[in-house]
């Protein structure tokens, strides 16, 4: 009996550790959870025996019947064998392709990023021309300068179909910067599947966030990448949980009020109603609950509104030394002098979005913000060392955070 209880609690612990807020959108994920595993095989067998109800993703081989062939298909997916995989990508498009692939072309930096994270950089044989034209202060390209030597495949809005055909990648990875009619035309005329492969939400554990993207792409890329995606997920979970454990003690009413200025469009008055690193680091985004103008949660507000919110910390997204607005400009803004963050000089740069959202630098921001919001609770946290470690884990190069401090933005340091 004791053993049973221990076993049950182990199962529960394993379940809770893995229970993310998304359904992995791959045909074969019969039980509609966040991963394809032996439970799906059991679930399909349950459907065949009529003890389970059919689900949307149970027909693994998409032949219209749920039978033993689906069990075989799921076994093949799990073992990384060659299989015709059908999935629903980050933009909700159903794609069928032969997995694992040997080569991919990525049309935009946002789709290149997860491939680097999954250590599948050798499979990239072409990148978007826009990626090649990016400046030197891009982490991904600094860590992997060899990417600049790859052939360009045109722009996101009008990819060069001929170049793609000449390179013969097994799949094209793109982002929402290519609209669906164009991606459809590209894959129809080149005969190469197009997959939207970029988290469409800047979150870790939710639908279309980083975790789902890694798992989804790893099923396309191969067995090694599947293993790698689990490593990355565990790594992020561990780091996030370390922070959350500390900040969860802070009662809601005592949480640091944070305002994030996030696009150059309207200067300081453009904010976002959600930015997950703020939440993870235990801050309260003052714009939370405002109606966002898009799924990224952008909201335009007035300076009066900022005064009324009276944030204790103002963050300015910044990925370049020549930012669209500087900390000094905000500190000297006559209209904002009564705001606590300005009075107490608590205005800082943070990386934020750049060509989509990078979960690697996003994780660094969680650590960075935790120390900014609660310096006394994170007194022992060496942000620079931790962030160097995080970026090395994702990009395989040491000292990347130090390089970012020198090249990307005037982020706060505690050295």
């Amino acid at each position, binding site marked *: 009996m004791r053993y049973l209880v221990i076993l049950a609690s182990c199962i529960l612990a394993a379940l809770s550790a893995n229970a993310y807020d998304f359904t992995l959108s791959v045909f074969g994920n019969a039980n509609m959870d966040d991963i394809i595993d032996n439970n799906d095989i059991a679930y399909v067998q349950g459907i065949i025996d009529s003890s389970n109800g059919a689900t949307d993703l149970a027909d693994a081989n998409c032949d219209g019947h749920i039978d033993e062939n689906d069990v075989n298909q799921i076994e093949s997916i799990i073992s990384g064998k060659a299989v015709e995989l059908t999935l629903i990508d980050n933009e909700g498009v159903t794609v069928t392709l032969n997995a694992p692939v040997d080569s991919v072309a990525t049309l935009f930096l946002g789709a290149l990023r997860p491939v680097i994270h999954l250590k599948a950089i050798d499979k990239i044989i072409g990148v978007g021309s826009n990626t090649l034209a990016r400046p030197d202060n891009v982490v991904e390209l600094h860590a992997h300068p060899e990417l600049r030597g790859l052939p360009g*495949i045109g722009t996101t809005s009008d990819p060069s179909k001929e170049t793609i*055909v000449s390179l013969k990648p097994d799949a094209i990875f793109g982002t929402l910067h290519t609209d669906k009619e164009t991606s459809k035309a590209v894959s129809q005329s080149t005969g190469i599947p197009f997959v939207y492969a970029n988290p469409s939400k800047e979150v870790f554990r939710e639908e279309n966030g980083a975790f789902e993207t890694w798992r989804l792409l790893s099923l396309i890329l191969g067995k090694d990448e599947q293993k790698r995606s689990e490593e990355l997920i565990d790594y992020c979970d561990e780091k996030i949980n370390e922070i959350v454990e500390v900040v969860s003690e802070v009662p809601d009413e005592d949480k640091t009020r944070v305002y994030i200025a996030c696009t150059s469009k309207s200067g300081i008055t453009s904010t976002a109603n959600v930015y997950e690193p703020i939440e993870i680091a235990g801050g309260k985004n003052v714009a939370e609950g405002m109606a966002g103008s898009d*799924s990224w949660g952008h909201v335009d507000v007035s300076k009066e509104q900022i005064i009324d919110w009276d944030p204790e910390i103002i963050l300015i997204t910044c990925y370049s030394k020549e930012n669209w607005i500087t900390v000094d400009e905000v500190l000297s803004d006559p209209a904002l002098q009564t705001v606590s963050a300005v009075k107490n000089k608590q205005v800082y740069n943070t990386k934020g979005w750049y060509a989509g959202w990078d979960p690697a630098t996003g994780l660094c921001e969680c650590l960075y913000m935790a120390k900014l919001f609660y310096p006394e609770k994170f007194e022992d946290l060496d942000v620079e060392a931790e962030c160097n470690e995080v970026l090395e884990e994702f990009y395989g190069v040491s000292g990347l955070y130090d390089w970012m401090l020198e090249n990307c933005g005037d982020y706060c340091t505690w050295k």
Partner: protein
Amino acid sequence: MSSQSKVIELDIIEAQYTQFLGKRYLFLLVLALITIALAGTAVTLGVIKLSIGQVYEAILHNFLPDQFQATEEAQRVVWNIRLPRILFGILAGMGLGIAGAVMQVVLKNPLASPYTLGISSAAGFGAAVAILLGQGFFGSYLIAGNAFVFALLSSMIIVAIARHKGATPEIMVLSGIAIMYFFSACTTLLEYFADSDAVKGVVFWMVGSLSKASWNELYVLCFVLAVCIPILVWKSWDFNVMSSGDETAKSLGIDVDRTRNLSMIISSLIVASIVAFTGTIGFIGLVAPHIARMVVGGDNKFVLPGSALLGGLLLAGADVVAQHIMPPVILPIGVMTAFMGIPLFFYLIMRRRKGYW
């Protein structure tokens, strides 16, 4: 003696007219030949190096598979990538050119075009509603259907204003600009509260590009043009009479209102079916008819086909340059049509006599 000289004068005039007529036919013929030559050359150009022989073998392989051999790659590149784009450019340019010419003549306004009358932006709004809200007319052709309904709505507003007593060309163009701003504002408002992913679709759609060209779209456009262009050319005599004034046209038995409404509806259909696949491409619809009119004069029997051929040539030509000027990057089509067409337009304006319009 005097009657003899009159006869000689008439002969001379007739000979001159025949010569002029010949020149106009020649102009249309030359345009058609240049367009065919452009298509024939463009199909041999591309990132993938295929010899002229390979390209044409790939084309002919489809019709005579036994006589002509082609690699799968050449087949794919020529049939799926190059040909649809070239043909779509030509057809879309033709449609925009003729629609612009018709709008200019039935509204008696040299500044009329699908773009300046706000018809493109109305079609744009219709498509944005379809993309962002998933609401609209005509089921599977949701985007195109919506674009058409809104294009029609705005052209009906224009026609209503045109019929209003005292509607001068200035008022018409101002109304067109007002409609353009109104629908642009509506689109912006929709975008502001819509999901960014879908907005991205709208933005591309508003910019204008031939990137979505494929055979399916080509068939639809081909069908629309095959039905609409003959009707418009058939009506060209009525347009000629209408250009001398509504009263004159009415006295000659032309149902002016009916002709104007019908031709605006047909033009809107053409514009909507192009705009629904390419996004808003300005300029061609305004400029092609002017260039045609400068060359062939005011006879709409020649202006309409001339505008169509010129529009096709300009758009397809601009797209060829846009694709090959800095590969693999393909420049936006609107940029190229403006860069290539505007100097030509200015040249013709400076060279031409006054009052060609």
